[in-house]
């Protein structure tokens, strides 16, 4: 039996989009959404939902699209997910819901993410009808305003709690605001979905560093329970000579300047960013792709340097494809061993070629340097995107909070830390993962926080 092809996502032409920060994926029209939804077989026992970390009733929302009942479809998603406009854009659907779609084996799974985004974009600016339980006046706190905390906050608010979110930066959203670029996740969307959360009665306090402005112990006096969703915020460095030269930035700094501080609009905005001509991005995850594509839009010729091969690149396939369409070069099996500079500024990355050896404990083939293969890549900017690690502030100010040797917070099966009433979830517990996994953790923690408070 022949299956119809997926309706392709309309996108900005690569030649045009590297000159702007507008969204790359333009979203389905009603007609495209109806066509794509019509491919859904409405399986009696749907498998797609098993692939969703927050358990969205995918079959039902697609059925509503098939019937043209977009509002009902939107609220079907919102039963489980308060942020469909964001997750519709940034979830790795190809390894989650779409991978478990029964059509996945044909290579043409239903484009669930695109349909989710379609409904969100279609409905989110209309007056919202979210049913919440009667306000119980019990105050709870969520620390951090990234995906994990936002999800916990939304579900706790729906249960009637008085939720207070605490954010260290001047704008909420965590990685959604400072990390993921405008062209992949417009800040208008982020702000709107967070505003809808405020409409549920959630209070957002910015400029508050929990651990500095208030300690966890102080907050526990005012809040019946709290959720720590502070993410994996601190950047990792390569630890090679020359890494502190001018022109070398962590991906976090580069993206914070551009996304959060709007440095791409300098001098209209006051935060500056150097526009590199030859930029080397080290790493091959989604953050590396975001940094590379951002540098490209700032006018650079960009080369991604990665120590393993294409098969091991951790970024989503779609992100790698988009990067290549935009003319970003990939220099694989290559690893920086030093940076060389002149007058304090980086001028070249000294790299060594690698080959793949036996698999490591995680099953990925270990890269081994090839002796004598050193060579230089001339560059005037380097962006280091090799991952992040938990921020030490919370642990420093709360020495009795149990963390692993890597600094991740230890929780029990109910997402509770060793401090009663203090729960945690998302990257701060698991290490770097995806937006939707953090949302899932926040939602589960909210259930146990509710149980904890009602039992207490």
């Amino acid at each position, binding site marked *: 039996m022949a299956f119809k092809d997926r309706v392709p996502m309309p996108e900005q032409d690569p030649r045009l989009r590297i000159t702007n920060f507008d969204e790359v994926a333009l979203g389905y029209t009603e007609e495209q959404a109806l066509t794509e939804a019509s491919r859904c077989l409405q399986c009696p026992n749907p498998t797609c939902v098993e692939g969703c970390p927050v358990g969205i009733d995918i079959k039902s929302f697609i059925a509503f699209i098939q019937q043209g009942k977009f509002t009902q479809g939107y609220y079907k998603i919102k039963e489980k997910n308060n942020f469909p406009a964001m997750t519709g854009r940034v979830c790795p659907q190809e390894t989650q819901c779409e991978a478990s779609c029964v059509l996945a084996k044909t290579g043409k799974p239903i484009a669930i993410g695109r349909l989710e985004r379609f409904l969100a974009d279609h409905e989110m600016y209309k007056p919202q009808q979210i049913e919440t339980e009667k306000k119980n006046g019990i105050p709870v706190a969520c620390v951090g305003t990234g995906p994990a905390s936002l999800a916990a906050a939304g579900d706790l608010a729906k249960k009637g709690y008085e939720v207070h979110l605490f954010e*260290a*930066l*001047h704008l909420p959203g965590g990685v959604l605001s*400072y990390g993921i670029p405008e062209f992949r996740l417009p800040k208008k969307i982020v702000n709107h979905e967070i505003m809808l959360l405020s409409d549920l009665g959630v209070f957002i306090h*910015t*400029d*508050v*560093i929990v651990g*500095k*402005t*208030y300690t966890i112990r102080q907050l526990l006096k005012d809040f019946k329970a709290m959720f720590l969703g502070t993410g994996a*915020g*601190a*950047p990792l*460095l390569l*630890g090679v000579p020359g*890494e*502190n*030269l*001018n022109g070398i*930035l*962590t991906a*976090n*700094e580069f993206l*914070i*300047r551009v996304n959060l*501080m*709007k440095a791409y609009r*300098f*001098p*209209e*905005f*006051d*935060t*500056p960013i*150097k526009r590199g001509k030859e930029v080397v991005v080290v790493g091959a995850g989604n953050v590396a792709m975001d940094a590379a594509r951002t540098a490209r839009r700032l006018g650079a010729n960009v080369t991604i340097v990665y120590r393993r091969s294409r098969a091991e690149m951790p970024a989503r396939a779609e992100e790698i494809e988009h990067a290549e369409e935009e003319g970003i070069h990939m220099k694989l099996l290559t690893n920086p061993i030093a940076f060389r500079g002149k*007058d*304090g*500024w980086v001028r070249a990355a000294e790299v060594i070629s690698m080959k793949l050896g036996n698999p490591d404990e995680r099953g990925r083939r270990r890269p081994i340097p090839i002796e004598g293969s050193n060579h230089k890549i001339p560059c005037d900017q380097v962006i280091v995107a090799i991952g992040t690690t938990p*921020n*030490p*502030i919370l642990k420093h100010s709360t020495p009795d909070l149990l963390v692993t040797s890597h600094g991740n917070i230890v929780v029990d099966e109910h997402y509770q830390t060793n401090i009663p009433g203090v729960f945690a979830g998302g990257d701060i517990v698991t290490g770097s993962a995806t937006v939707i996994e953090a949302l899932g953790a926040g939602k589960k923690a909210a259930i146990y926080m509710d149980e904890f408070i009602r039992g207490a």
Partner: protein
Amino acid sequence: MYELVDKELIAPEIWKIKVRAPHIAKAYKPGNFVIVLPHERGERIPLTVFDTDEENIYIVFQEVGKSTRLLGKMNVGDQIQDVMGPTGHEFPSQKFGNVVLVAGGVGAATAVPLGRHLHACGNKITTILGARNKGLVLFEKELESISEKLIITTDDGSYGTKGLVTDALKEVLSAKSTDLVIAIGPARMMKAVSDLTKPTSIKTLVSLNSIMVCGTGMCGACRVGYGETTVLTCIDGPELDGHLVDWDTLLPRLNMYKEEETLSLSLMEKESR
């Protein structure tokens, strides 16, 4: 938004402003600082907390770039977009013994709270206060009150001894056994002090003024080579061991955005004309 409650010009282009921020005032400890975003399209800059009371923090800053110029132009009653903090490592409550506090220029604003703290912890303090000229000598009274001895140096000799703080430091170190030197001021001055004390192996702390963005340990803008490793000024500092700081990479880092700073300033001046 944070209300500017009061402002005082304490020297040419140097302001002390009083900002209402009770939560920061309560949490503040010596060594801490704040990150200020002057307006919605502004940049996040680290500024010194000079003092606090129940409801307010007192920030001292010098007008150098667009952001500090804008802050200097704000009027009493105006609202500052964002003030985050306190951040930075608190200074340890420890009795070191004989401490020499070397403060240069507007660094005196940071020296006052640290000096008060060290004094309260039972340390005996000699303060060397340096400035370009008499008009730029800051907080003389405040520093005198916590010091056993206060030495003032000016580059032009218009007040105190003519010369550099390092000249005075040499004399102090040769006259008296010293357990700790703390240098606060321009990076070149802090480097000179560290170079001077390195052969003596007297513990020397410097209060770094790195360029920052987040101020919470996320971005790494303020990183500095430190012995065999790299640390972040915002959460590992601002007080760091001057003998471990890699000054050769730190000094160029401080000038990284010189061109952009100049452009911002000139555009601002054009607008106000």
